[in-house]
Every structure is written in structure tokens, then in C-alpha cells.
């Protein structure tokens, strides 16, 4: 009994000492916390270093998305590039898991350290392609999918990509 009374008094003294300790609180809107570049926040679509949009509308992000918040339609440009005719992310469903970013073969879809995306209207949470597309390259500055893939497009035939050998003529007998 006496022991527990002493223990209670010690507790009181410990708490009283906290009068002089500084508050741990981060006063958020005035005092922004540091967010790492790899923080998983608002999703963007990026351009390749040449300024062309990276997305090839392969639908892998939409497949990977566990909450099915990504919708897009594939189209083909005159030069043979694929591109999304529309690209829609419903951020009221998005859980910022980053699966789409991991699935993306062209580094087009990326998550950014921005999380302040509150809206009064629920439909405003549905972002269309023009809201998602940014001018820069995001986190990967040198990667250009069409420069490393074997796909032929206008101005780049098969075998002309970086680190790519000339295609082998399988019908020829010569080495």
C-alpha cells in the first residue's frame, strides 16, 4: 500500500517535470514536415527526356491497382507509339500504395510527396489525364522507354535502341 502510494507520488513528480519539456507537436500547416522524394502521395504521369509522354497505355497499372481506381484507354499515334486516349485516377479510392508505380514498365506513373488534395466535392477527386500529366521526368531523369525497347517506331527501327544488337535473320545460314 505504502509502496504504491510512493509510486503514485513519483508519477506525479515525473509528470510535473514535463512542464518544462518542449511539445513534440509539429504545427502542421505552418510547420511542414520533411517528406522524402519517395514519399507515396499524389500520382502524376511524367514525360521522357525528349518531352514525349512516357505512358504507353499498357494497362499494367490498372491491373496492379488493388482498389481499381485507374482507368485508361489505349490509342496509337501516327508514328507507332502507344498512348492513353484518356487516363483517369479516382483519388477518392486511391490508397497511395504505389503498386502502379512498381508495375509501370516505362516509369510513367509516379507517386509524389504531395498529399494535400482535399476537396469539398467528391467528383473533384477524379483526376483526368490533363490533371495528372506533368512536364518533367519525375524521379527518373534519363529513362526513355522507346530508346531501350526493341519496338520499332518512326525514326527508330529494330536494333537501333541503346544496348540492343542488330536483329538476327533467322532464315539465313550465314553466321
Amino acid at each position, binding site marked *: 500500500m505504502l509502496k504504491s502510494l510512493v509510486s503514485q507520488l513519483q*508519477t506525479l513528480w515525473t*509528470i510535473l517535470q514535463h512542464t518544462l519539456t518542449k511539445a*513534440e507537436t509539429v504545427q502542421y500547416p505552418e510547420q511542414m514536415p520533411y517528406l522524402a522524394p519517395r514519399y507515396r502521395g499524389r500520382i502524376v504521369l511524367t514525360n521522357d527526356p525528349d518531352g514525349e509522354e512516357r505512358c504507353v497505355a499498357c494497362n499494367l497499372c490498372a491491373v496492379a491497382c488493388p482498389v481499381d481506381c485507374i482507368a485508361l484507354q489505349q490509342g496509337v499515334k501516327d508514328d507507332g507509339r502507344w498512348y492513353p486516349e484518356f487516363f483517369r485516377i479516382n483519388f477518392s479510392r486511391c490508397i497511395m500504395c504505389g503498386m502502379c508505380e512498381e508495375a509501370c514498365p516505362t516509369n510513367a506513373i509516379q507517386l509524389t510527396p504531395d498529399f494535400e488534395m482535399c476537396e469539398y466535392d467528391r467528383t473533384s477527386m477524379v483526376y483526368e489525364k490533363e490533371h495528372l500529366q506533368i512536364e518533367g521526368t519525375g524521379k527518373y531523369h534519363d529513362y526513355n522507354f522507346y530508346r531501350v525497347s526493341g519496338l520499332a517506331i518512326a525514326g527508330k527501327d529494330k536494333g537501333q535502341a541503346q544496348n540492343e544488337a542488330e536483329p538476327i535473320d533467322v532464315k539465313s545460314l550465314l553466321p
Partner: protein
Amino acid sequence: MTELGAISFGLFIIVAAVGGAAVLTWFERRVLGIWQDRYGPNRLGPLGAGQVLADMLKLLTKDDWVPPFADKPVFIFAPTAIVVAMLLGFAVVPFGPDLYVLDINIGLLFFLGMTSLAVYSVLLGGLASNNKYALLGGLRSAAQMVSYEVFMGLSLMGVVMLTGSFSLRAIVEAQRDMWFCIPQVLGLFTFMIAGIAESHRLPFDLPEAEHELTAGFHTEYGGMKFAMFMLGEYLGLILISCMITTLFFGGWLGPWLPPLLWFCIKVFILILFFILLRAAIPRPRYDQLMALGWKVMLPLTLLNLLLTGAIALWLEG
């Protein structure tokens, strides 16, 4: 003091006590914040004091709803009872040598009676809500009352014995040579614990117990009726602090400063201490509280009574 003066001072006390209780809701959250290494409400107005106004506005504009399954008249009566009882308790508190509403020769008994009446509010509120949590809260309140009311009254008898009067002014005057917190240290200790239990403050907020009973006896209450319960609780806190000041810390007595200021300073420090208790001590189970009340506190008060009586007789004889 003239009758008119007493009435006007009474009105002033009501306004001051209710205002103080309202400010205390904000102040307590700020002080708790300091002790828990955070800020508490600091956005609205200077130091966040505008929070008081905002809370008041919110509570006043809320729908005044009575659940269809509740016992309506009792449900409405319960929150008023606690505020009325607590405010009446202030009538006997002497704030200064001639600053009081009532100076009756049973002042201390009046105070004990009024605080005991306040328990009805919690009991009836819990019963009338017709809700399991509220009923459990009311039940705990009853159990708590049974265990602390006895030693609460007895713990003050030492003070009465030393003074020879139930009048609170006489009790303060009797402390000119020495505050009763020294000869009556056991009485102070037991009365303080009873006082916390009486005002349903943490760590003895068993009837409310947010973590177990949602909100205990006022689970079904909202809007102004809920505000009345909160007001009653904070009024109880101020009243208990006032009583401890009067009974054990020499009331308005003190050098240099004016009496009223001394009184306010002492009350303020006691309120701070009660908030510190809230910040630091966990809530006991209610059988633990009852065991503490009957097995430790009651024998302690009786021992205190015995010793005080013996010493008083020895000093006389």
C-alpha cells in the same frame, strides 16, 4: 453584509463560477497538453482561449434531443440538479473576511449536503437514459458514493473539532496561527481523495470512464444537457478546491496581498494539482476504489479523529 449586498454578491459568484468553469474547460486542456508534451487547443484567439466561445456556440446550437426510450422528466431534470447543487454549495464559501453569501453556523454541513445531492444527478441521469452504458455508469456512481461519502464527512470532523464550529468563517479565523493542513494532514489527504471522487474527476471518474463505458452516465446526453453535466463537473472541481482552501489552507489568510487574491491563488494552485492528478494517475477499478475507501481511508479518518480528539483534550486538560 446586507441582504441586497448578499444577493448581488451571490449573483456575481454564480456568474464568476460558471464563467470560471467555462474557461477551465479550455485551461485544463492547455495544461494537460503541457504535461503531455503537446499544445492543446491553441488556434482560436490568444493562446487558443477563443476555444471556450467556440465550444459554447457549438453546444448552444446543438439539437436538444431526448431519446424516445428515455424517462423524459427525469432525463431533463438530472443535468440541472448537479449545476444547481454545486452552485448552492458556493453560497457558504467565504471568499474574504466579509465576502460571502451565507454565513450559517452549519456551513460545512450545508456544503456536504449539497455535494451529496449532486450525486443524484449522476444516478438519475444514468437511470433515466435507459441505456446499458449509462446504467453501468450510474451503478458505479452509486458504488463510489457509498464508499467515499462516509469518510468524506468524517475527514472534516477533525477540523470541526479543532475549531469548535461548523461555520466556515470561524474555521478560517481559527487558522490564524497555523493552517489546518499541518495538524490535520491525514484529514487533508483523505478529504482530497474524497473530493476527487465527489467531483467525478480523474482518476475517480468511474461513472464516466470514456475508455470503458463510451461516456458512462451521460452517454445519451447531447447539446446543452451534456454541457450542464460538464459545467457541474467543473463547478465541482472549483468548489472542492475552494473548500480545501477554506478548510486546510487558511482560506483568505495570507500576508501582504488582499484576502480575495490570496483565496484565488490558493484555489488556482489546487485546481492545477487536480489537473496534474488527471494527467498522471490511471483510473482504478471500482472494486479497488471501494476497497480503498472502506479498508484504508475510513480507518485513516477514524485514526485521525481519535488522535485529534486526544490531542485537543490533552491541550485543554
